[in-house]
């Protein structure tokens, strides 16, 4: 159903938005020496109690919409474990949620990043009042992007001003252009 790793990032960020987070941290780190790819999405939203966390992990539980089936988290877990990785969902009611998935970077079945630049652009441009921090690392490149920093520089100019979108496009292409192969 979800065939690309960056789709999971979007899904988890959407979960964090739904949980009314004021800050969401997205980390993508590829460590070739240790053959590990890590995805982590941490938020300070409303979090879950232990019972809800169990329901979410089991699947078919969602509060996003009446027709949502609640399979995002179980699918990510299945992919991580299938790729010799780990999965953890840590949450506390009122404090936030952290989802961490790791994968063996060289695993033959590891899904690709379909379009990480578009994923980050989508997240930043539609962040609204939520602060987003993105951290990306691989062997050659690393960058951090914080919407609070961007907003400070932009003042009243909206994140979706055409010039800002063009800038973010160019910035992301410069930092992670070609980083689509997982």
């Amino acid at each position, binding site marked *: 159903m979800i065939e690309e790793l960056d789709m999971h990032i979007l*899904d988890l960020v959407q979960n964090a938005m739904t949980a009314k987070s004021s800050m969401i941290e997205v980390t993508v780190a590829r460590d070739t020496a240790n053959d590990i790819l890590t995805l982590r999405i941490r938020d300070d939203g409303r979090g879950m109690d232990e019972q809800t966390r169990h329901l979410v992990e089991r699947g078919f539980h969602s509060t996003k919409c009446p*027709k949502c089936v609640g399979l995002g988290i179980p699918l990510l877990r299945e992919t991580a474990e299938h790729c010799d990785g780990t999965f953890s969902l840590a949450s506390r009611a009122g404090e936030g949620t952290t989802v961490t998935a790791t994968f063996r970077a060289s695993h033959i079945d590891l899904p690709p990043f379909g379009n990480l630049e578009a994923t980050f652009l989508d997240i930043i441009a539609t962040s609204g009042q939520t602060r987003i921090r993105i951290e990306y690392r691989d062997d050659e490149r690393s960058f951090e992007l914080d919407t609070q920093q961007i907003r400070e520089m932009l003042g009243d100019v909206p994140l979706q001003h055409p010039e*800002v979108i063009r800038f973010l496009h160019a910035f992301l292409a*410069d930092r992670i252009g070609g980083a689509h192969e997982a």
Partner: protein
Amino acid sequence: MKLEDLRKIRERASKDLNLRKGDARVRIVVGMGTSGIAAGARDVLAAFLDEIAKRDLTDVVVTQTGGRGLASSEPVVEIHVREKPIVVYGNVDRDRVGRIITEHVVNGQAIEEFVIEVREP
């Protein structure tokens, strides 16, 4: 290329008389629930942002929602034009994004063949 370049954009854009005040004329809502994402909502949202950048649209905003599921017609997009009924399009892809922007957002003509729902705001 540095993040500080954004300050120059701010100086230029602040002088722009078209800089929107308050609500945008058109709001585009992309369904980003799990099934929407799986069906291609990432590229649809990015395509709308591309069109805004390419056509210099300063009166259009794109937002996302996880709260609407129409799994059989994903990706789903709503077009909210001020004081007009909300038009919902289904099975949106990059090509359809281009047509929606040209025909509906810019020229005000909904594209009937892609419409799956119309409702009052």
